[in-house]
């Protein structure tokens, strides 16, 4: 945990150049959600913006202010002009802060926080409603409902304060999250998805809440291509489970094969359910993830 703090203080999460580039981006939702407040997003609701959306027949009780008088003059029929409602977008980031995220160099934790900070900033810059949640055994920290660029220090502060500890329990975390936040929106889950309880239940719960769901699986190079040799006693940093192994080429190959299979299963699970799945190793620069991968996936524009 001290290491997390050190990491955080080593360099700012986001540097000025990068922030400048982030400002040109905006978060795109594949779904149109109902916002809470007026914002810059198109809403499902027809509303009062300047942007024309549609016509419909007048029914008694409609606001006469929205009648199209020109049409009425030409056709002698009453049509009501509908305008797009622009509302704010809920941008939620669910950040895994279980002990396993602290592992690897650079740690997956710092990496995922940087991605979270980037996304939060983009959201803030576009006047979206940004909420950050950290989860371990359950939801551990939250920072909800921030709007406006001025809130960036709060976000940074929040990300700095959150500590990585405990066993990850995605199911519990997702249940808590979806119960507390019925508002749909964009949800980015940042995790290694190494959950002995399984990730499926948790994701299903989030899907049930109709989130536009993005999963970013962050793994460290040590996990992807372990350089272990000899007779080892492998200890799980989360639950201190011990596995005695004799390293061999075959075992490592087997491990890689299993990891690949695990990631493939996760990806298939996601794609089948309309969840965008992204995979990243911590040796890929995080700005590349933000500027390239997320854009390619359509989360950012």
């Amino acid at each position, binding site marked *: 945990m001290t290491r997390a703090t050190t990491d955080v203080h080593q360099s700012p999460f986001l540097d000025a150049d990068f922030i400048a580039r982030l400002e040109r981006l905006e978060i795109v939702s594949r779904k149109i959600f109902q916002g809470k407040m007026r914002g810059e997003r198109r809403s499902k609701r027809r509303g009062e913006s300047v942007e024309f959306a549609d016509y419909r027949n007048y029914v008694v009780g409609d606001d006469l202010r929205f009648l199209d008088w020109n049409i009425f003059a030409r056709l002698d029929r009453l049509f009501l002009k509908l305008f797009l409602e622009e509302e704010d977008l809920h941008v939620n980031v669910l950040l895994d802060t279980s002990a*396993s*995220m602290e*592992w*690897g160099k650079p740690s*997956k934790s710092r990496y995922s926080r940087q991605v979270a900070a980037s996304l939060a900033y983009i959201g803030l810059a576009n006047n979206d409603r940004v909420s950050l949640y950290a989860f371990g055994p359950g939801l551990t920290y939250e920072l909800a409902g921030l709007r406006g660029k001025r809130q960036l220090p709060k976000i940074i502060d929040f990300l700095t304060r959150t500590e990585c500890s405990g066993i990850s329990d995605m199911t519990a975390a997702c249940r808590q999250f979806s119960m507390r936040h019925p508002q749909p929106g964009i949800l980015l889950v940042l995790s*290694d998805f*190494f959950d*002995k309880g399984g990730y499926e239940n948790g994701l299903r719960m989030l899907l049930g809440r109709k989130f536009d769901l993005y999963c970013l699986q962050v793994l*460290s190079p040590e*996990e992807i291509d*372990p350089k*272990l*040799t*000899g*007779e*080892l*006693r*492998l*200890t*799980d*940093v*989360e639950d201190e*489970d*011990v*596995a*005695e*192994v*004799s*390293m*061999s*080429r*075959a*075992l490592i190959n*087997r*491990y890689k*094969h*299993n*990891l690949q299979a*695990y990631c493939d299963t996760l990806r298939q699970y996601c794609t089948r359910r309309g969840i965008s799945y992204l995979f990243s190793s911590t040796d890929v620069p995080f700005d590349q993830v933000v500027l390239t991968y997320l854009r390619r996936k359509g989360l950012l524009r």
Partner: protein
Amino acid sequence: MSFLAGWTAIAITAAVTVPPLVALYFLKLRRQAVPVSTTMLWRRAVEDLQVNAPFQRIRNNLLLWLQLLILLLAAFALGKPIFEARQSDKDTLVLLLDNSASMNVEEAERQTRLDVAKRQARTAIDNMPDGGRAMIISFADRADIVSAFDTDKQALKAKIDEIEPTESTTRLTEGIALAEAYMQNLIIAGDQKGQDIEVKSSAGPARVMILTDGNIADAATLTVKNLPTDNIEVVGIGDRTDNVGIVGMDATRRYEHPETLEVFAMVRNFGDSKVTLDAHLYINDDHVDVQTMTLEPGHLPPADKPDSADTGAAVVDSALPAGSVASVAFDDVQYEGSGIVEVRLQVDDALAADNKAWTVIPPPRNVAVLLVSEGDVFLQRLLPTLPISLETVTPAEYEQASEDDITVGGRSKYDVVILENHSTDRLPPGSYLFLGGVPKIDGVSAGGLIKDEVIFNWDDTHAVLRYVAVDTIHVFQWLRLNLPSSAQVIMEGESSPVMALLYQDGRQYLISAFGLIANDDVTGEPMLNTDWVVKAHFPIFVYNAIQYLADAITPSGQRSIQPGEPMEFPVEKGVTTVRIRRPDGFVDRIDTGEQPTVTYARTRRAGIYTADPVPEARAKVAVNLFSDAESDIAPRRKLTLSGEQVSAEQGIRRVNKPFWPWLLVAMVVVLAIEWAIYSKRVFV
């Protein structure tokens, strides 16, 4: 392939080392703790591979297999595997190594014959079965036991390496005798105490291996008593035949001009090609003269060789090819002082030891002679004419003279004391010429008188009798001499020696059984005993005798000795240690033990030996090879031992080529592979 050490060694080694190795793999010691983000995937991988199952682990662990292979290779190497094992059933081996002068011949690859013989000997040792015994004897002019019976092959081989070359002649008799004596000891030692010694002993018959180039001087007279000839192998060493050597040399002062030296050297070509060479004369290392000479080939093809040559006997006179021997003479060499005369042959041949010869010449001097006589007109007239300083006393005066009058420094004051018709025990160390008398010493006595006999045999090659026509001498009567066996008889009557040389306790005696004057039996008046005194060669004899006795250095009377022969140095009183500098620069110290002379026998190198402190005239002795048998380096392929011909084998075949070095090499290779695998982390 078989194993010298047997399967037991392999089994024990494997039993001791393999189980611990496997156990180590099972116990697997301490595992390194490594934190990982999740053990989930590892567990799954481990479960997939089932690595924790013991036999699977072993099956999959190449390193273990490689290490097991290494252990097995080492175990097999310990078993001393050998190829083509033709083990001798005889586990006792006697190695006789020739280290005489001819073994110094450089053969191929600049190895001397001795080096080759040593290599062969080592092979023979290697060929022995484990537990076999071997004894090593080196032989030249005498035999030395290099190593008594030993079973330790490494120690034996180390002893073989210690054998040093000599420049001596070759005699095998002593070596064979030693081997037989040791075999006897072994047989006795091998039996139980108190039981009769039977012929079939635990020792078993020994294999005798003689490594020689075949130039054995005493091969013809060699007898092998206890060793069966079947068990004797002769390994012939050497191929070269080209050699030119000095086989004789002398340097004398001209009688009438003592400052003039005459140097002779006899040079012989033993090779099979014509040789032209330069003979250089050096005096005290200063170049004086050079002569060029050409020698015809002296080596005959084996087929034309007389039998005697093939049997290894010295070929001296038998049918030398014409022109292969030549003498070189350096006349009129003006040199007054004492010094060393050296003749060097400038020739590139196989053996270097015989290309140089030395002679020590004393300075010209007046020999001090004491004549002890009742009055002998002949000697009294003759001796003053010789270049000597003479004193004359009567026997009575001699006996009564004080010690100081006749001795100086514990030795006789005179170079030669001539005693006529007088036997005495007053003999301080020195040289004595007895005429009609005997020294009263152990082993020498005079019996009655012998009359009417003729001198029947004599050695006219001896320096004392040179130019003396003994057959013209008539002697009326002489004493019956009883002499010890060490005496050298140079003139013999029908029933008794007449003249003999004896060297004993640092004193040299020339004993003549007759005097010049004898008392008549009837009248008791002195009368002439021999007509020699009126012959022309009598003065020559007297001069020879004085010269010989005054100059004589060695028991043999030669100014130079052959390598291996002992040399004696007179010692002055009070000297406790004599240092002797050998030709190779090594200095030996000898304790005199208050004796009047010291004997030095480490003379197996040719050259000049210098003693200090010793009277200067006798401080230097030359050792020269002067041996036709040694200089004739052509190897003999047949030896006659006890009348049986033994053909020499050409080298020893390595019968049991050891295989273990290859096993060790394989082990190292496997070890390297294992290391490579380990370091590359290719663990399968």
